[in-house]
């Protein structure tokens, strides 16, 4: 079945099998391997992408369900090589080690802070409790998210 969707501002048309997940489709059919698959059960959150503004587990969504959707992946969080304030905060606070869960952390936080730039620590922790990191112990990730809020607030003020 032919499916078209927008990924990071680029329109793609693919022909996935009915059972192909959005995660596998992005990785193997579209060739964007930044989205990682850590469990395929919807538990770890590594595969999180933003579909029509909402953070979604791409391992639990079929590619065919994404027809017509606007999708943002890790590759679209910054502007190419240039890091966004959220990405820069991750670097500064050492919010990543092996980098495997990082795409899901960034997409989840990007979706959250775009909607709720004033989210407090408790809210951030609560939302991030759906994303597992085995390296950092989460504390530096929370610190990075708290710092990045300022940039999201400024952006919300502009629009």
């Amino acid at each position, binding site marked *: 079945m032919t499916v078209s969707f927008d990924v990071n501002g680029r329109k793609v048309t693919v022909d996935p099998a009915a059972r192909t997940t959005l995660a596998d489709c992005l990785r193997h059919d579209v060739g964007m*391997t930044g989205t990682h698959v850590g469990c395929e059960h919807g538990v770890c959150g590594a595969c999180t992408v933003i579909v029509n503004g909402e953070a979604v587990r791409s391992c639990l969504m079929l590619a065919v369900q994404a027809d017509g959707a606007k999708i943002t992946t890790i590759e679209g969080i910054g502007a190419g090589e240039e890091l966004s304030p959220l990405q820069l905060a991750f670097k500064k606070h050492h919010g990543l080690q*092996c980098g495997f869960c*990082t795409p899901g952390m960034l997409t989840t936080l990007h979706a959250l802070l775009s909607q709720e730039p004033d989210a407090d620590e408790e809210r951030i922790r609560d939302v991030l409790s759906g994303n597992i990191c*085995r390296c950092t112990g989460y504390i530096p990730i929370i610190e990075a998210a708290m710092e990045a809020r300022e940039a999201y607030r400024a952006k919300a003020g502009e629009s």
Partner: protein
Amino acid sequence: MRTVNTYIGSPVERIEDQRFLTGTGEYVGDMSREGMWHAVFLRSPVGHGRILKIDASAALALEGVRAVLTGDDMGEDVPTIPFRRPNPTIGPFAQPIIGRGKVRYFGEPIAVVLADSQEIAEDALGLIDVEYEQLPAVLDRETCFADKVLLFEAQKSNVTSVFNAQKGSADEAFAKADVVVKDRFYTQRQTATPMETRGLLAEWDEKNRRLRVSGAAKLPFFNRKTMADMMKLPEEAVDYIEVDVGGGFGARGEFYPEDFLCAFAARKFNKPIKWVEDRREHFTAIGHSRECEAQVELALSKDGTILGMRGDLYVNIGAYVRPNGMTPVRNAAQFMTGPYRVPNIDLKAHAFVSNKTPAGTYRGPGRYEGCFFMERLMEMAADALQMDRVALRRKNLLTNTEMPYPLATVLPSDGRAETNCDSGDYRETFDRCLKEFHWDEKAKLDGQQVDGRYHGIAIASFIEGGASGPSEACKLELEADGSVTLYIGSSSIGQGVETVMLQITADALELPMDRLRIYHGSTDLLKEGWGSYGSRATVMGGSAIMMAAEKMLDRFREEAAKRLNVDPSSLTIAEGVARHADGRSVPLAEVASAKIVTEAKYTSWTPTYTYGAGAVHVAVDADTGHVQVLEYLVVDDVGRIINPLTLHGQVMGAAVQGFGSVFSEELAYDDQGTLLVGSLADYLLPLATDYPHIHCISTDNYPTPNHPIGAKGAGEGGIIPIGGVVANAVSSALKSFGVAPNILPLSPNRIWDLVQAAKRKA
């Protein structure tokens, strides 16, 4: 070596981060080759059984399935995986690379399906018809030592080895003791659980008879040799290529059956073979660890001086002895006394096989277990002596004047029978921990009920081994533009190797970091090397870099002297420039045409011992069994800090892993040997909401005297003391009930059971 404005000791942001933050890293699952086949493994659904029949005809008939391999395709004898740390008795217990005739654990591979896509290969799994005769399973110490069921019929016992850790005369010490405390303790089965599951891409070049294996981690050089031997190829014909790795923690990167089977298939069919493990499979197949029972006792004199320790440890190593399967066993015996002065020791560590997944290492192997047993004994001893538990510990901690301090000797020897604590004053980190934790203030809450919950505090001390031998190698190459490329055998498992190694190189060559490039962990870069395990990369790799850099500066001096027509000894080198007293100078870039390449191999079998203390404050709900960690503080001394940012990150990450160990992670089996964990929803890793109050302080007051770099292996400090310290805090909180939390994990139901049992007794 630069001595001011150094990169070493500075919180340099990681150069790795850019690609990870932009989704442009390359993990093995991201790799793809034209015409590649996908491998999936059919795994035993029974814990112990005989294979009566395998019929793959229906699977082979499925469109897109290319082949199905079973044990019968492996020749007369199914090869077994060699040991990394051999000993005289484990030979017969080595793991065959595929189950044939008999299966000994749930998840043991018995067939490989090769197909055009992973989906088709997985469909085909369900079409393979296998009949088993199920056998009774050996699951624990009781069923093992009954010896009614033997995993290996030709062996008379399920015990593979007994390690004896010995020092002085324990029996004499116990005869003289005023107080003896003893009990039974247990740490549950766990696994490291890196967020990236395992995977491999094996490629065979028929024309040149070369094998290329991508997805290597941890110890690519040893695994290359193993693979070459098993495939009957010269070592140079095999390349192990490291790409980005999503965490290791001891489990990922050992030589596993799937490694051989993918390579075997690649050669047999002359096709690139890709395998990516799924999460359920991961739990059944990657190395488990930590399942250890202790029956141990501690002898003390009236004044609290430890006189001796003796007893038995029983380590459930699963169905086979894997390459490093004995490491946690011998470590638990050797390191159980930890940072304490114990003059007389007699511990036996029994390794036994069972119908569970074969074990390997997990962060702080044997040390986490041993520290839990030791710290529980110390707490019991303080009670028995009616002595302050802080004073008791402090009295027995090793001090600087006692270094080097010999730990127990472990036999049979795996080459590391004897070892010494290298440097440091173990009271310093202990005192610092007490102070920063505000122990005296918090002690007022100890055992008190506040808002319905019981508060408890505890402190524990630990040592952490590092700098595992035997050697590490590196090469430095001066490029045409005056920049330098570093090739190093150390591998990256996500810990920040690139940044740390370049900090060391930059200071050693006195160049800015952006003039350096690094290539690491792939066997096509260097003739020899080792990898990253046992907290070794920084010490071993860093020391090799210092040697190679010195050679490069010598060569630079020679070349510069030629150009200036002066004696080399008349030149001083600083910040990439060779200068003569007459004012003339030569920058490094100017000698690039000399094509300077220097290599170094740093060899050492002398471990380092980072040490420290951890303190915790918990609140226990006696009605639900829930424990909240209100604060955890760990203080460690690592000899020399290379990068405080990455060090801090690892210690903190280790602490949170440790809370998973203490409270929620468990690989449970049913009585037939079926693993009851199928997903991350069953194996409860710590989440962002669970442990927000953790603090780490690292100091570098006592560099190791054994390595030129001064740094000690680090990054496990957060996890090693955590079982002991948390169990003691819980026991302290619930002291009005008199509970003894001697069995981990401290899940709500276990604590509730302990409280209920104590109430019934009262």
